[in-house]
């Protein structure tokens, strides 16, 4: 009865090979192999396409939403299947933990004179990645609905709650709030945002001992619960995609959403004119009185595999550096992301992320054991969100689940 089922859908695999050589390379030429693994969204597709232009390289790219489960196994072998992985500040940790990426200092010195310092990600003085774009979650709102309800654009979650109540009581929308609250990664991320917004710290300083069962943790969960009362009752199944779909269907007036996804919400595809033309972005939401925005900053960047020949490493570095050079930016690519590349001119859709950076939001922690806490949060918080247990119990469960995993992974000793 075993049926072979490919789980998560098709993998976009494109092999360009030596055919790239017919182009003149636009000022990029190198000898060697380039094999890219990365997530699949427009900005990354543009970078990969640009890198594959490089003449003389033997290039291919595998851009898929499953990149995280493929990159470590694909870079562990010697020689590694993938010569570069496009990662974010959360996922680079897995590559560093497994020691499959190499420091880039020598390559930067030889080929990377043009790379500005703010694109270099360094750990303990060694450059481990080159970041090319920034991302963050921030407020997205419907201008027409706020006007109709006579409301200002909210700047804090307390104001969002008040606005939601006003919109509902005036009968404009039944469930005016949206949010990627799907049990698992998304729900955990919303917890992280709100917990940082309350001024919380995830771990006891200098250790891997979790410390979230505290006042800020309880306040975080209570705020999330209060917000969920104004969401579609199916909110625990809504990931970023489903939340975006709800938005495009015109069912939602306010939500905290990824900057990288706002372009899709504001274009004229997939929604009525009334919805997309009134979709506006604003800065991050605050919560409580900590002064820290309730969101996290992210970067996306590329790395170079450790287990490859020096020739391939040099070719990969040159091609990827070309992929994130100023030549990448044109009318089409400019609005795809908040590029960290010189020559970037912010577009309207980028305002939310830029405002988030300016507001002093914290970056998502680049800590070896953060991923374990993220998984524990994703698994244990849904009981609370359904009203089956108290906030204290949910947080105690998260701590227990994290601790069991951290002991196994060797981060915590009993």
């Amino acid at each position, binding site marked *: *009865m075993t049926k072979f*089922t490919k*789980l998560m859908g098709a993998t976009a695999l494109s092999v360009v090979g030596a055919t790239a050589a017919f182009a003149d390379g636009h000022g990029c030429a190198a000898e060697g192999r380039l094999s890219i693994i990365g997530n699949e969204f427009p900005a990354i597709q543009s970078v990969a396409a640009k890198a594959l232009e490089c003449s003389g390289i033997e290039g291919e790219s595998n851009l898929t939403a499953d990149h*995280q*489960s493929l990159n*470590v196994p694909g870079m562990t072998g010697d020689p590694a299947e993938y010569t570069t992985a496009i990662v974010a*500040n959360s996922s680079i940790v*897995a590559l*560093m*933990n497994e*020691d499959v990426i190499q420091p880039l200092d020598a390559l930067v010195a030889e080929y990377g004179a043009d790379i500005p310092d*703010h*694109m*270099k*990600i*360094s*750990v*303990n*003085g060694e450059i481990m990645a080159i*970041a090319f774009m*920034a991302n963050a979650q921030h407020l997205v709102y419907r201008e027409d609905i706020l006007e109709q309800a006579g409301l200002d654009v909210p700047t804090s979650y307390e104001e969002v709650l008040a606005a939601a109540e006003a919109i509902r009581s005036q009968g404009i929308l039944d469930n005016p709030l949206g949010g990627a609250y*799907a*049990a698992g990664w998304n729900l955990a991320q919303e917890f992280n945002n709100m917990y940082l917004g309350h001024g919380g710290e995830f771990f006891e300083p*200098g250790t*891997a001992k979790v410390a979230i069962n505290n006042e800020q943790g309880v306040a975080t969960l209570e705020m999330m619960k209060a917000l969920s009362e104004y969401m*579609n*009752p*199916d*909110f*625990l*199944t809504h990931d970023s995609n489903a939340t975006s779909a709800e938005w495009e269907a015109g069912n939602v007036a306010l939500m905290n959403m990824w900057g990288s996804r706002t372009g899709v919400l504001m274009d004229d595809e997939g929604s009525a004119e009334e919805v997309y033309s009134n979709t506006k972005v604003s800065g991050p939401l605050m919560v409580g009185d900590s002064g820290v925005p309730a969101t996290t900053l992210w*970067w996306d960047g590329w790395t170079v595999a450790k287990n490859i020949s020096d020739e391939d490493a040099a070719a990969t570095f040159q091609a990827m550096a070309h992929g994130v050079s100023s030549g990448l930016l044109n009318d089409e690519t400019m609005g795809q992301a908040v590029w*960290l590349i010189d020559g970037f001119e912010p577009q309207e859709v980028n305002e939310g992320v830029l405002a988030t*950076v300016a507001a002093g939001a914290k*970056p998502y*922690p*680049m*800590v*070896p*054991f953060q*991923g*374990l806490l*993220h*998984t524990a949060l*994703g*698994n244990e918080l*849904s009981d609370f969100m*359904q009203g089956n*247990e108290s906030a204290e*119990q949910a947080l105690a*469960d998260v701590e*227990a*689940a994290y601790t*069991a*995993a951290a*002991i*196994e*992974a*060797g981060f915590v*000793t009993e």
Partner: protein
Amino acid sequence: MKHGTFLTFVAPSLLAMILLIVFPVVSVIIQSFHAQHEQVIEMVESCGPFGCSETATINQEATEALREAEPLGRFVGFDNYVNRGHLAFAELGEAWRSSDTWGEWWTKVMNLPFYSAIVFTLTFTFIVTPLTIALGFAIAVAVNASVQKIRGPLIFISLLPFIINPIVGSLVLFWMVDARGILGQLIQWIAADPDLSVKASTPMMWIMLMVYGIWHSAPFAFVVFYAGLQTINQDTNEAAMIDGANRWQRVRYVTIPHIMPLVTFVALIQLMDNFRVFEPLISFSAEAHAQSLSTYILSDLTGETVLYNSAAATSMLTVICVGILLFPVLVRTWRDFKRA
């Protein structure tokens, strides 16, 4: 047959079985008794586009030395099996001591991820398996009694749910029961509650998963039983008719005894299959309401930090559970075999 000839015949498949079944299982057993090395953590300065900060990182050189010395990791005996993520003996004991009523104790047990996964998995298995057999049998009898002309198309239609990829089939149902889908609206109308949502309620989600399970595997039972029905001795059937047996009595006393061995076979396959329930939980985004042992293993393998040892322990516990579950059926098959 000579032993030598026998060996030559079975050697290729024996080799394949050792390579593809025995070795991986042994590897999983070994991994389940190990945990990762203690990671050597140090605080370093890390910088990026958002400024610099003091962060923890793993000291690769120190960790590398530990890895070289013991590539499998630390041997921890049964620690992985008894920690909170699995059999959770310490937590069970604590729950027992601190609970005044059975209800309170049960709530605490269901709060442990392994037990809540196993309760869902067992409920699913024991509800879906008999209903699949019953529905499959009913369809087989109905198709068998239909006019010859339409039998072909009928068989094809009855097989459809089984042919459709499980992910696609469950996604179709998932969208139909959405609060704005056709079935979701129907349920709201029947219950006269416009806010009712299947995806937001744990009992409704469980029912939907089981309905999907039955819908998906009934055709398998049907096709096996339908084949069995073709071999029924018509003399017995006609004799029963002459004796005045009505339709129900013929099914009860002629058909069912005849296909009983097939029922055992279908039950065996379905018990194994249903115990590994996986795809519908993924398609239905059911994480918040139901975990099965398989999705529990998946969640260990898909985090940013992969927990192979924990996944190995859960896998071994799953194998043991399947063994216990199938034991009665296997004993029965063994007896039948010896009798024959």
